[in-house]
């Protein structure tokens, strides 16, 4: 088994394999597969398919879903989760695409030589109590916790209990000792960068529901109902809608005469509908969850979180919730690209959930940096401890050693060690897709051009403060001298500390890091850089459409604006239909190429997509 896995797997780059020697306990081998239908890859597909069949026979893979392709007749997509003695390995598994019964592509991650007990010493009730204590919140659902095998960022496998809690995180705790081993946020939020002045004021149609005594912002014309609630600036209302409650129906935005005067409600509701339309028309995708489930959003929240998406099982119906607030200047954050951005967070997770039963997990990887970094006269170096200051009533001060490796790849506190510089690929992919769809929806409803209500490759420009531009990421700086990246090698990477919890090892991001060879220190955490690093993938999207010469000198022949839907379909197919839950940027590049091959063969669109991804280093 291990031989065939090694035979089929991608050559593992350092970002995948570097952590293998970190923990004290034996670490299983992790293999990432990308067997594509590209010419010359046929043998790899045959081998990968043989591996799938063999792992099914041995009970190591269990088929979770089988779904017909949404766009290509005869194609079928299956997701197989990796199982160890009846317990799923969180995020591990293989995604197989077949055509008329023959394998076309296989993507995913598996672990070999898994040797971990699956009998927890902590019962499920005790585990839930432990998670309540850790989260300071009750469980988010009535479901019992799940027993899973969790791969940590450092390559260990941990038997863990998992449950979503009302602090808006899914917690994972060691099923033996009860220590926290991971928590995954359900909030995808835009960065807290302040925006400028007002929205466009363009007239919108509001698809409303006539109650007989007034009108609700409740769209029942589209196949999926779209409901926009009104927080009326009271943050407490929004918090109350984080959890299942029938009270959401009392919060639905209302107008007496159907002539809507609240710009935030009007734009949010209209732009949600436009995003629904775009995904339905261009991608044959139904709503957020792919099944036209009700779509819920709330506008007129205050400045907290600005704009965000809260994934299931949270939200007033347990199906997620989009929230739209305002800029620091009080301007509603509801331009079409921002609304579509948050909507796509839901689609990215919803598609993955529907196909694999898991949200996008993503992976974090590192490269080795120098032994020390100096910024503004302050230096951190291997062997030092990093201090996380106390937060009153929430957290005590913590000190941990910087995570450094010696020349053998072992953790060291020696001054001669090398700092590990980390990047969160999964979050960057999530954000990139949200920007891609935000841009695509804008082009679907506005004519190209500059200014208000014009389509461009800028994000947030209609509230007069562009936070990203995917046509020219390097023209924007997050601080003097630090531009957004447009290729691998320019990404923001973060120094982490090494946290030991009992027998387990974890990482925690600091605000120190590097971009290329330049060190930085942030005043805020920057959400692990996921928004900034997203422009690597989203810039490839731009190049595949518009073409041009990349900063590296690579030339891309784009398909042209008139054919933008071709590129959009390839990119969305990569995440919606093909991607496994555990993804990295390099793997995403291969998935998108496979999607382009599926849709267009090796014609000009595939060439444009391939050249664009190559130009940005994917």
């Amino acid at each position, binding site marked *: 088994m291990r031989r065939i896995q090694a035979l089929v797997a991608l050559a593992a780059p350092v970002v995948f394999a570097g952590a293998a020697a970190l923990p004290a306990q034996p670490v299983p081998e992790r293999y990432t597969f990308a067997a594509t239908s590209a010419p010359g890859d046929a043998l790899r597909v045959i081998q990968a398919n043989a591996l799938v069949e063999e792992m099914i026979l041995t009970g190591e893979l269990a088929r979770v879903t089988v779904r017909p392709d949404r766009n290509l007749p005869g194609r079928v997509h299956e997701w197989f989760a990796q199982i160890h003695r009846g317990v799923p390995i969180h995020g591990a598994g293989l995604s197989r695409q077949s055509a008329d019964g023959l394998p076309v592509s296989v993507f995913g991650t598996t672990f070999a030589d898994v040797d971990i007990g699956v009998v927890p010493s902590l019962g499920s009730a005790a585990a839930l109590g432990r998670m309540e204590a850790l989260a300071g919140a009750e469980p988010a659902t009535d479901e019992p916790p799940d027993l899973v095998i969790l791969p940590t960022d450092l390559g260990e496998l941990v038997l863990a209990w998992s449950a979503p809690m009302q602090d808006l995180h899914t917690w994972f705790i060691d099923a033996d000792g009860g220590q926290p081993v991971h928590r995954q946020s359900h909030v995808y939020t835009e960065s807290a960068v302040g925006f400028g002045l007002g929205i466009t004021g363009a*007239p*919108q*149609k*509001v*698809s409303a529901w*006539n109650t007989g005594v007034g009108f609700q912002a409740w769209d029942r*014309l*589209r*196949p999926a109902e779209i409901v926009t609630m009104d927080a009326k600036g009271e943050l407490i209302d929004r918090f109350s809608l984080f959890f299942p409650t029938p009270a959401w129906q009392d919060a639905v935005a209302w107008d007496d005469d159907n*002539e809507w005067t609240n710009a935030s409600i009007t734009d949010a509701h*209209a732009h949600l*509908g*436009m995003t629904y*339309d775009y995904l*339905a*028309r261009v991608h044959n995708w139904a709503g957020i969850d792919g099944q036209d489930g009700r779509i819920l959003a709330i506008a007129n929240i205050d400045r907290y979180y600005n704009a965000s998406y809260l994934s299931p099982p949270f939200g007033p119906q347990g199906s997620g919730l989009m929230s739209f607030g305002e800029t620091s200047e009080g301007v509603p954050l509801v331009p079409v690209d921002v609304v579509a951005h948050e909507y796509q967070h839901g689609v990215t997770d919803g598609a993955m959930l529907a196909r694999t039963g898991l949200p996008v997990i993503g992976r974090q990887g590192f490269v080795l940096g120098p032994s020390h970094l100096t910024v503004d006269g302050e230096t951190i170096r291997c062997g030092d401890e990093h201090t996380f200051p106390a937060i009153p009533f929430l957290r005590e001060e913590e000190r941990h050693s910087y995570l450094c490796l010696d020349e053998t790849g072992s953790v060291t506190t020696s001054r001669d060690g090398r700092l590990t510089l980390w990047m969160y690929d999964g979050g960057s992919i999530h954000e990139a897709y949200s920007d891609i769809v935000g841009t695509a929806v804008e082009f679907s*409803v506005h004519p190209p051009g500059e200014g208000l209500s014009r389509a461009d490759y800028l994000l947030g420009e209609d509230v007069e403060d562009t936070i990203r531009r995917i046509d020219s990421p390097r023209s924007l700086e997050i601080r003097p001298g630090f531009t957004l990246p447009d290729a691998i090698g320019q990404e923001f990477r973060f120094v982490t500390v090494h946290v030991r919890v009992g027998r387990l090892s974890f990482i925690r991001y600091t605000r120190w890091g590097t971009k290329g060879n330049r060190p930085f220190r942030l005043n805020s955490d920057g959400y692990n850089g996921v928004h900034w690093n997203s422009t690597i993938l989203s810039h490839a999207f731009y190049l595949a459409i518009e073409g041009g010469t990349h900063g590296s000198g690579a030339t891309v022949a784009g398909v042209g604006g008139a054919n933008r839907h071709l590129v959009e379909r390839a990119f969305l197919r990569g995440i919606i239909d093909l991607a496994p839950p555990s993804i990295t940027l390099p793997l995403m590049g291969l998935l998108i190429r496979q999607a382009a091959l599926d849709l267009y063969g090796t014609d000009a669109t595939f060439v444009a997509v391939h050249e664009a991804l190559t130009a940005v280093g994917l």
Partner: protein
Amino acid sequence: MRGTTSIGQPSQGVLAASLLMLISSAVPGLAQSEDRWTISIGGGLLAVSEHSAEGLEFDHRLFGSEQGEFDVDYAGGDAARHGFSVGVRLRKRLALELTQTESSLTENVDIAARLPHPFFHDTYRTVDGNSGGLSRDETALHLSLKWLVRDGEKVQLGLFAGPSRIDLDYDRVSAVRFNQTYPFDVASYAGVEHRTASGDAIGFHVGADVVRWLGKTIGLGLSIRFSEAEIDLDAADGSTVSVNAGGPAAAADLRFRF
């Protein structure tokens, strides 16, 4: 208003007939003769021309702040027509006649409409189609001076002209019905909604008739008449539309003289 009114109010036809008798008795020098009075009753066709077309706007609950538009072309046609008349000879070759006619047409319309998209401004779907069953009812009262070009014992030929009053009850298209489903990029024609508009006006008529007397009292007549009155009707969108009532008509009738 089709020549009948509420109890206690005489109809226009009765009023006109009374006026006719008053005039005949007031005209001096008229000798009583056996054929001074004539009555006719008959039927025929009124050709309603295809001139009635208009463009209107209409609302729909899914149009938002925009309005739909449609052009409607009323096809016209031949309306069944019946009527009666009474006449009196004022001079040897000069007569006064009062004629009331009623015509009824079931009319077709051709529709071409632009429908605002329920989600997007300045985005329209076009539909077109044809519907029937719209009623156009005219009641006309013609007061004619007739000159008998030929006044033979067996054949009479007359030319006549005078004012006409025409009442019109007209089913006018007020909105277009359509079918649509998500994504609402296209719609299909499903018919029209209409409402009856009424109006009246004074116009004119000219014509000619010929009578073949079969005996002392009874004869068969043929007549052609062109009448016209421009009637303002209230359109569905609150505007006013002018319709030409009347038109060329031909009729055959049974006549009596005494």
